[in-house]
C-alpha cells in the first residue's frame, strides 16, 4: 500500500515568503507528526495530531509556524515570513495510533535564500 507522501520534495523560497508543506498519511493512521531536521542534526519535534484531540503544538519554534490536519487525513505545515534558519528537511510521519511505530515520508527539503 501507499506510504506517507510529502510534497513538494524540494522547495526553494525567498526570505520573507510564506510556504506550505503537505503531508498525506497512510490511510487509517490516526496519529500524525511533523519534525524538522537541520543538516547533520537530529529530529526536532514540531507538532503532533492524534485523532480529534487538540494537537500538541509544543514544538513549534515560533508563531510563524502553524499546522492543520483535516480529520485523519491530509496535514499542511505553514511557515510564514520564512527566515534562513528555517532551511531544513521537514519530515512527516504517521502511525496507526499513539505509541505505534512511525512511518516516515521522504521529507520536504526547504531552502530559504
Amino acid at each position: 500500500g501507499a506510504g506517507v507522501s510529502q510534497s513538494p520534495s524540494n522547495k526553494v523560497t525567498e526570505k520573507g515568503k510564506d510556504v506550505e508543506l503537505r503531508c498525506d498519511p497512510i490511510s487509517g493512521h490516526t496519529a500524525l507528526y511533523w519534525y524538522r531536521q537541520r543538516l547533520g542534526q537530529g529530529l526536532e519535534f514540531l507538532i503532533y495530531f492524534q485523532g480529534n484531540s487538540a494537537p500538541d503544538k509544543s514544538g513549534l519554534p515560533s508563531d510563524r509556524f502553524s499546522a492543520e490536519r483535516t480529520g485523519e487525513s491530509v496535514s499542511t505545515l505553514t511557515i510564514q515570513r520564512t527566515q534562513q534558519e528555517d532551511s531544513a528537511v521537514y519530515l512527516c510521519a504517521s502511525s496507526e495510533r499513539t505509541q505505534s511505530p512511525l512511518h516516515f515520508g521522504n521529507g520536504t527539503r526547504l531552502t530559504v535564500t
Partner: protein
Amino acid sequence: AQSVTQPDIHITVSEGASLELRCNYSYGATPYLFWYVQSPGQGLQLLLKYFSGDTLVQGIKGFEAEFKRSQSSFNLRKPSVHWSDAAEYFCAVVTLQGGKLIFGQGTELSVKP
C-alpha cells in the same frame, strides 16, 4: 520534562566488530522505546521497539536492544557490524499515557574496512 539522550555523536567501528549505541531517557512513566536508522539519502526505518515483556528485544538486520529500567537505558547492540550498517541511528521514546514521540540527537556510525 521528557528527554532522550544519545551521548555519542559519532562512533567508528571496524567491520566485523561488535557495536553498542547508548540511549538514556528521562520520564516519570513507563515508556515505549524505539530505535530508528537513517541511511544516507534514505528515509527513517524502524529497527526495533520495546513496549513490555522481555527486556531484550530483537530487531531487523541483526540488531537487538536491552531495556534497563534501573538505568533508564535502552542501548542498541549488534555482535558483528557490516559496512552497510554505516548510518545515523536515533533512539526515540513515547510514554504509555500517550503523547509525542521524542527523538535523541542521533549517533552517526562509521564502519572502517
